[in-house]
């Protein structure tokens, strides 16, 4: 040990969280300095990622890896956490007495998420997951006077506790039957002998616990309620950073720890992938709340990421990473637009019908939201098409042609409700205009996200692809 460089990002965020907690206690109420300092800390952690030695191998007794894969995930997590902090600026009431704790909890959640993507040991995995989830439970019920927010937090907490129990049961079985908690030890045990029932049960329970965290069907029930009830900036955070952390955690567990048992977990992952795509597409039909709809959209998108995971190997991992990066930008962009949906008094609106005729009242916002919707649907000229193609390509390369065909067909089914939003915005009569908000930073972020998903994004295929390939090279 002695050298803390590999965990420098986490150390920066930890110190920043503790400092900001004290700072918020003494700062003027309603001051936004805490928010900007938190953003600064997150950007600083991103810079520290570049300096982290990638070849340090597994440190802390093989429990923690600061490799390219982790760095890729952390970059996504930290940036989406920064966006979530910026989104909250001006969202919580000025009089809300605990607005200073919001960035602190986001920072702590980001630390948990970054530990998740770096974990190479079941203990580390669990601790990272709990740190991330516990902060998330509090964030979900952050507007505690709002009944829906409190309900979201309670629901998330109870179901999250259940999922942690399932995950721990799986971990204890894996440990009991392999005698190791490190991923290398487990992988060696799987490669060594015959894979007995105990190991299969441990594998299934562990994957079920992770599936809950990424909201894959059949462990998705909490998602629409929590996404709807939680404050919008928090929902945006849930749908981006922690979700990607859990997807990458699942990728590392499957490809590293359970690598020799690919045939066993592949069936589970394929089932979860197809079920998520179908349910995400079908259940979204009747929704009238845009946050619920985006929740189903996130379930749907996780399904596509799992198709990449099912492919396995370096190609599959690369597809998952690329998909995650593009998905996060699309989702954050969509939520930034949702944040703009406020009535004349500045109260947030969430119903789909309030979007009607947006193209006439606020044409630029409508254009941006339409681009995100087309991109989430994976319609070709936009960038959202490319990662889907990569995922299908990886599945075909791995010999999973039927899976790729089924997922591609289901993309068309899912496109329906994305197009429905576009139709409401462009072809329905306007009912009332949204309040115009002056948030230059958020506007800049919307523009940046929109440019990213526009065909201009194809220019980024090379750099992101190179990063993803470097990240996937550890498998």
């Amino acid at each position: 040990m002695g050298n803390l460089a590999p965990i420098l990002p986490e150390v920066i965020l930890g110190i920043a969280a503790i400092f900001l907690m004290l700072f918020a206690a003494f700062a003027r109420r309603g001051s936004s300095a805490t928010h900007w300092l938190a953003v600064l800390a997150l950007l600083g952690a991103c810079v520290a990622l570049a300096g982290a030695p990638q070849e340090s191998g597994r440190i802390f007794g093989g429990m923690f890896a600061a490799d390219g894969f982790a760095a890729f995930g952390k970059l996504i997590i930290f940036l989406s956490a920064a966006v979530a902090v910026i989104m909250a600026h001006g969202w919580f009431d000025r009089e809300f007495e605990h607005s200073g704790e919001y960035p602190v909890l986001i920072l702590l959640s980001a630390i948990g998420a970054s530990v998740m993507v770096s974990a190479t040991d079941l203990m580390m995995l669990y601790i990272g997951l709990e740190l991330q989830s516990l902060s998330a439970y509090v964030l979900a019920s952050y507007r505690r006077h709002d009944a829906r927010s409190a309900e979201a937090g309670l629901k998330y907490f109870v179901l999250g506790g259940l999922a942690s129990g399932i995950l721990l049961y799986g971990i204890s079985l894996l440990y009991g039957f392999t005698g190791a908690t490190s991923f290398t030890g487990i992988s060696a045990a799987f490669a060594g002998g015959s894979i007995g029932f105990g190991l299969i049960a441990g594998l299934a329970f562990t994957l079920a616990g992770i599936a809950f965290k990424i909201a894959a069907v059949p462990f998705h029930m909490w998602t629409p309620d929590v996404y709807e009830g939680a404050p919008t900036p928090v929902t945006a955070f849930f749908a981006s950073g922690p979700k990607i952390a859990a997807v990458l955690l699942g990728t590392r567990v499957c490809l590293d720890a359970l690598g020799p048992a690919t045939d066993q977990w592949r069936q589970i992952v394929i089932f979860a992938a197809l079920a998520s795509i179908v349910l995400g597409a079908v259940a979204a039909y009747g929704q009238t709340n845009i946050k619920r709809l985006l929740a189903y959209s996130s379930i749907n998108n996780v399904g596509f990421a799992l198709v990449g995971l099912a492919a396995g190997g370096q190609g599959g991992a690369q597809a998952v990473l690329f998909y995650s990066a593009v998905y996060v930008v699309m989702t954050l962009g969509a939520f930034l637009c949702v944040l703009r949906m406020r009535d004349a008094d500045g109260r947030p609106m969430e119903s789909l019908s309030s979007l009607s005729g947006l193209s006439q009242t606020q044409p630029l916002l409508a254009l941006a939201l339409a681009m995100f919707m087309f991109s989430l649907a994976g319609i070709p000229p936009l960038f959202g098409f490319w990662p889907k193609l990569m995922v299908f390509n990886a599945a075909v390369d791995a010999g999973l042609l039927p899976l790729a065909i089924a997922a591609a067909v289901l993309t068309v089914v899912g496109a329906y409700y994305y197009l429905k939003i576009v139709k409401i915005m462009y072809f329905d009569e306007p009912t009332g205009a949204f309040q115009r908000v002056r948030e230059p930073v958020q506007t800049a972020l919307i523009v940046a996200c929109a440019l990213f998903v526009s065909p201009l994004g194809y220019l980024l295929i090379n750099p992101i692809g190179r990063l993803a390939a470097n990240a996937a090279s550890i498998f």
Partner: protein
Amino acid sequence: MIALLAFYLFATLTIASAVLVIFARNPVHSVLWLILGFFNAAGLMLLTGAEFIAMLLVIVYVGAVAVLFLFVVMMLDIDFSQLRSGFNRNLPFGLLIALVLLSEIVIAISAYSAGPAFAHASGAPPANALPNIEALGAMLYGQYLLPFELAGLILLVAMIGAIVLTHRSRGDARPQKVARQIRRRPEDAVKMAKPAVGEGVSL
């Protein structure tokens, strides 16, 4: 010799205070006897070389649990004489539980003396020269430093969460405003008056 003496002293006091926990009339006295029992049990642990457990017993059980008991007993108005009134009625049931526990102890001891059931089941780490507090410390702050520190962060999140979700500033609270108190001058607060005799003051 001194160790033997200490053992009998601690053992006798443990049993005596355990008996007194049950027979003390006043529930507060029961809890105090319980604390004495914990202290003596800690002494027994020290004699067996398990100093970490001894300290844990004092810090956790005496420092936290027993004090909590004491608070509960003192705060809640429980009528203990009424609780005790069903003693004879519930005696058979109590005896049954005592019998079950006793037989379990006997079985456990005989199973233990018969040797381990599985060859590799002995989970006890090999005894080494390091005292067990040092061994635990080396483990927690060496090999498991990162998870240990992160667990600390989890506790921090729990604290922040509890405060964020439950704290409300009450409208009727009257905090001290130091600056205002210091700013206040005698001229603002005191009025000198010279009332004429027989007229009183006008306020």
